[in-house]
C-alpha cells in the first residue's frame, strides 16, 4: 500500500540547533504524535515537513507526500499543494490570524481557492459546525475569540480544502482540560469521518495518549523512541520516554510527578548519545558513540546503545521455604534501571525474605537464580563495589552500631571495600539525605540520634557506595506521618537525582502507590504485578465541564 507521507533522512540545521536525519512514514488516516520537551526539535520537524523554514537553514533529505517530493519542489508548485493536500495549524493560534479581518474574510480567503463563490456561504457554515463553532461567529474578529475557539477556527481553515494530512503544532498548549478534551474529540471525529491523517506535535503526553496510534519521541533533535502509542505508554523502553511519561501530570493525576533529572556534569564530547548525562544507565561508551535508531524487536524503534532501559536486577523463579512452610514459590521479579519498584504485601507475607534474597544477604534459598544486568550475579562483589547493590535494613535500631560515631558508621563501607575517599563521600551522602555535614554531627554517637536520623544515616551509608540498585526494607515503618512523608520524598528525590533503581519493600500500600513506578504484591507466597493505574485513579473531567 502506498504511504501518505514518507520522510527520508530529513534534517534541518540551524547554527545553534540541528534536527538530525530522521525517517518515518505515515499511512492514510493515521495519527502520529511527536512528543518531547521544549527545544527537542518538534517545531523544527514541522517546519521541515511543511517546507516553511527560515533563511539560512540547511535542509537535506526527502519528504514524499503521496509520492511527490516536496523539498525539491518549486515554491509555486508547493503552494498548489498547500491547504489542498496538506495543511498546518501552528502553535499559539491567534497570532496566525489576521487581527483586522473577520473570520468570514479569513475563511473565504482559503476557500475560494477550491470552491466557486456561490458555494462559499454553505461551505463556511458547514465547516464552522464541523469544528463546533456557531456560524454567527463568522462575523467576529480574532481578538473576540477564546483560545479554544481560535484553535478550532484554525483547524477549520486547515481542513477547509479537505487535505489528506493536517499538521498540528501544540494545538492544546493554551487550552484548559475540558477544552483540550473536546478538541481531541474533534480531531478524532475528523480523523474517523473524513479520514484525515494528523501529525500532532505536542509536549502533552495525555493528548498524545488520547489521539495518536503511533508516537515519536524527540530529544535534542534526535528520535529516541518510536512505536505504537499503547505499547510505549504501557512499557516505555527508552529512559527519556519513561521520564516524559513520569513527568506528565495528565497521565499521573494522583501520583507524584517527577521531571527528568537535569544534566549532571559530564564531559560530553560531540559524538555522544544526546541523552548521556541525564540518563540513569550511561556507560562510558555512551559518551563516545551516538546510537542509531534501531528496531529492537516488536516493532519498537529505540535509539540506545544498550537497547533501551535495561534490567538491572532480576530474580528468576525463586523458591524458599522455612522448614515446611513455603514462603516464596516460583517468584520472578525484575528491577529495571532508574525505576522505583514497590514490593507490597501484608505483614509476614515474606517480603523481607524476598528482599534479603534479592539483595544477596540471604543466600540459602532452595531454587532460582539472581541476575545482575543479565548475568549471574556475584552478590559478594556487588556489595563491595560502586554501582552494585545496597540495602537499607528494616530496623534502623540494629542497622547501625550504636557505639560508633556518625562518621565512622557512614564511612565504614568504603573503608572496608577499600574504595577510598571515605570521609568526603560520607559527608556528601549525609548532606544528600538532609543531615548536617558538620564536625559536631559527624562526631555524634549513633545511640544519641533519633529514629528518623538513624534511618537517614542508614540511607546515607548505603549511598556512599553509589549503588545501582538500592533495596529499602520498610524504611518508613517506624516514623510518624510527617517524617514518613519527608523520607518518602527524600528517597524518591535521591532516586531521581542519583538515577539509581529502588526496590521499596513495604506493607504500606498507600505510600507504595504514591512513589512506585511499578508495584508487586506478594500474596500466598506468589508474586503478582499490580497495575497501579487500576487502583489509583481520579476523575477530574467534570470539574471544567460545561
Amino acid at each position, binding site marked *: 500500500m502506498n504511504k501518505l507521507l514518507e520522510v527520508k533522512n530529513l534534517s534541518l540545521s540551524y547554527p545553534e540547533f540541528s534536527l538530525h536525519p530522521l525517517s518515518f512514514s505515515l499511512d492514510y488516516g493515521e495519527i502520529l504524535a511527536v512528543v518531547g520537551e521544549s527545544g527537542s526539535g518538534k517545531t523544527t520537524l514541522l517546519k521541515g515537513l511543511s517546507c516553511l523554514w527560515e533563511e539560512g537553514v540547511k535542509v537535506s533529505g526527502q519528504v514524499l507526500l503521496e509520492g511527490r517530493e516536496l523539498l525539491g519542489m518549486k515554491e509555486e508548485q508547493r503552494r498548489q499543494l498547500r491547504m489542498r493536500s496538506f495543511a498546518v495549524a501552528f502553535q499559539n493560534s491567534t497570532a496566525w490570524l489576521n487581527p483586522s479581518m473577520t473570520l468570514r474574510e479569513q475563511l473565504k480567503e482559503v476557500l475560494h481557492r477550491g470552491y466557486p463563490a456561490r458555494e462559499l456561504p454553505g461551505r463556511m457554515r458547514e465547516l464552522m459546525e464541523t469544528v463546533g463553532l456557531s456560524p454567527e461567529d463568522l462575523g467576529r474578529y480574532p481578538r473576540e475569540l477564546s483560545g479554544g475557539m481560535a484553535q478550532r477556527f484554525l483547524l477549520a481553515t486547515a481542513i477547509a480544502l479537505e487535505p489528506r494530512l493536517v499538521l498540528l503544532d501544540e494545538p492544546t498548549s493554551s487550552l484548559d482540560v475540558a477544552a483540550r478534551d473536546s478538541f481531541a474529540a474533534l480531531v478524532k471525529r475528523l480523523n474517523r469521518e473524513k479520514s484525515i491523517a494528523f501529525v500532532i506535535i505536542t509536549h502533552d503526553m495525555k493528548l498524545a495518549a488520547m489521539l495518536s496510534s503511533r508516537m515519536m519521541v524527540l530529544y535534542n533533535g534526535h528520535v529516541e523512541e518510536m512505536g505504537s502509542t499503547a505499547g510505549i505508554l504501557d512499557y516505555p523502553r527508552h529512559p527519556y520516554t519513561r521520564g516524559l511519561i513520569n513527568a506528565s501530570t495528565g497521565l499521573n493525576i494522583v501520583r507524584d510527578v517527577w521531571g527528568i533529572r537535569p544534566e549532571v556534569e559530564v564531559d560530553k564530547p560531540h559524538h555522544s548519545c544526546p541523552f548521556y548525562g541525564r540518563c540513569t544507565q550511561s556507560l562510558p561508551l555512551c559518551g563516545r558513540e551516538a546510537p542509531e535508531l534501531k528496531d529492537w524487536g516488536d516493532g519498537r524503534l529505540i535509539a540506545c546503545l544498550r537497547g533501551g532501559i535495561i534490567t538491572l536486577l532480576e530474580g528468576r523463579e525463586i523458591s524458599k521455604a522455612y522448614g515446611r512452610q513455603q514462603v516464596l514459590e516460583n517468584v520472578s521479579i525484575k528491577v529495571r534501571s532508574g525505576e522505583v519498584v514497590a514490593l507490597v504485601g501484608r505483614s509476614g507475607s515474606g517480603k523481607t525474605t524476598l528482599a534479603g534474597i534479592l539483595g544477596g544477604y540471604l543466600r540459602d534459598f532452595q531454587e532460582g537464580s539472581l541476575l545482575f544486568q543479565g548475568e549471574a550475579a556475584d552478590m559478594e562483589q556487588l556489595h*563491595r563495589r560502586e554501582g552494585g547493590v545496597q540495602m537499607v*535494613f528494616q530496623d534502623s535500631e540494629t542497622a547501625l552500631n550504636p*557505639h560508633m560515631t556518625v562518621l565512622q558508621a557512614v564511612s565504614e563501607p568504603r573503608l572496608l571495600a577499600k574504595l577510598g575517599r571515605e570521609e568526603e563521600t560520607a559527608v556528601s551522602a549525609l548532606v544528600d539525605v538532609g543531615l548536617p555535614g558538620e564536625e559536631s554531627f559527624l562526631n555524634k554517637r549513633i545511640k544519641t540520634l533519633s529514629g528518623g536520623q538513624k534511618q537517614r544515616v542508614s540511607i546515607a551509608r548505603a549511598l556512599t557506595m553509589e549503588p545501582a540498585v538500592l533495596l529499602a526494607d520498610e524504611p518508613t515503618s517506624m516514623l510518624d506521618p510527617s517524617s514518613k512523608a519527608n523520607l518518602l520524598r527524600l528517597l524518591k528525590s535521591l532516586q531521581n537525582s542519583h538515577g539509581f533503581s529502588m526496590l521499596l519493600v513495604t506493607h504500606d500500600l498507600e505510600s507504595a502507590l504514591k512513589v512506585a513506578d511499578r508495584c508487586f504484591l506478594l500474596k500466598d507466597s506468589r508474586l503478582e504485578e499490580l497495575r497501579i493505574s487500576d487502583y489509583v485513579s481520579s476523575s477530574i473531567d467534570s470539574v471544567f465541564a460545561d
Partner: protein
Amino acid sequence: MKRICLIALALMLLVLLFAWGVLFYPMDAELPSGGSLEAPSAEHWLGTDNLGIDIFAQISKGFFHSLSIGLATALAAFLIGGVLGVAAGYAGGKTDVLVEFLINLFLSVPQLPIMIVAGAFFGQSSLNIICIIAAFSWAPIAKQVRARTMSLRRSGYLVLARSYGGGLWYLFKTHMSRDIMPLLAISSLAVTGRAIVQESSLAFLGLSDPLAKSWGLMIARCTAFKGIYFTNFWTWWLLPPVLSLVLSTLLLRLLTRALESYWLEKE
C-alpha cells in the same frame, strides 16, 4: 556504681591485710614459731596449729595461693570460653554443632567426681589443678558468649560490615567486642570465686599440691586432728580458714553480681 566501689574497697582491704600478712608479719608460714596449738595472742594473732606454725601467716599465704589459682583459671576460662563462644556463634554450621556439643557435655557431667578422678590421675601440682578447674569453667562462659554472638551476628550492622568485606578480626574488634567483652569479663570474675572454692575442695580431699599453703589443706589437716572438737582449738585453727574462704568468695560473688546488674542497667 556506689555498691561496686564499696565491694571493691572491701576486697582491696582484704588483699592489703593478707599482703601485710605475707610481707611484714614477723611469723613464718612454713616453720614453727611457737608452741603447739597456742591460743591467739599479740604475738600470734590467730594462734598456732598443732605444729606450732602461725595460723595468720598461713592464711595470708593461702589467700595468694588461692587467688592466683582462681585468676589463672579465670584467664584460661576467659580465653577458651571467649574464643569457642565467638567462633561457634559467628561461624554457625558444623563449628557451632561441635562447640555446642562440647558445652553441653561439660555442663552436664558431674564436675566434682570427674575433678577428683582427674586430679588423682594427673598428679598433684598447681598447674594441673588450674587445668582441671578451667576445663570445667569455660562451658557456661562459652554458652553465654555464643548466644550473644549469634544475636549480634544477625544485627544489620554486622551483616552489612561483612558484606562490605570486613574480616573476622575487624568485625570482632569494631562491632562485637563492646558487647561481648563485659560479658566475658564478668563471667570470668565469677569463675575466679568458684575456682577458689573448687581448689579448696580438691585440696581438702588431698588432691592439691601438698606443699603449697592452701586453705583447703589447712581445713583438712585441722579436721583430721583427732579430738579437735573436744577442745576449743578449732575456734582459731578451723574457723579462720573457713571464714576467709567464705568472706573472699562472697566478696567476689557480690562484686560480680553488682557489675552484672550495672552492665544490664547500662544496656
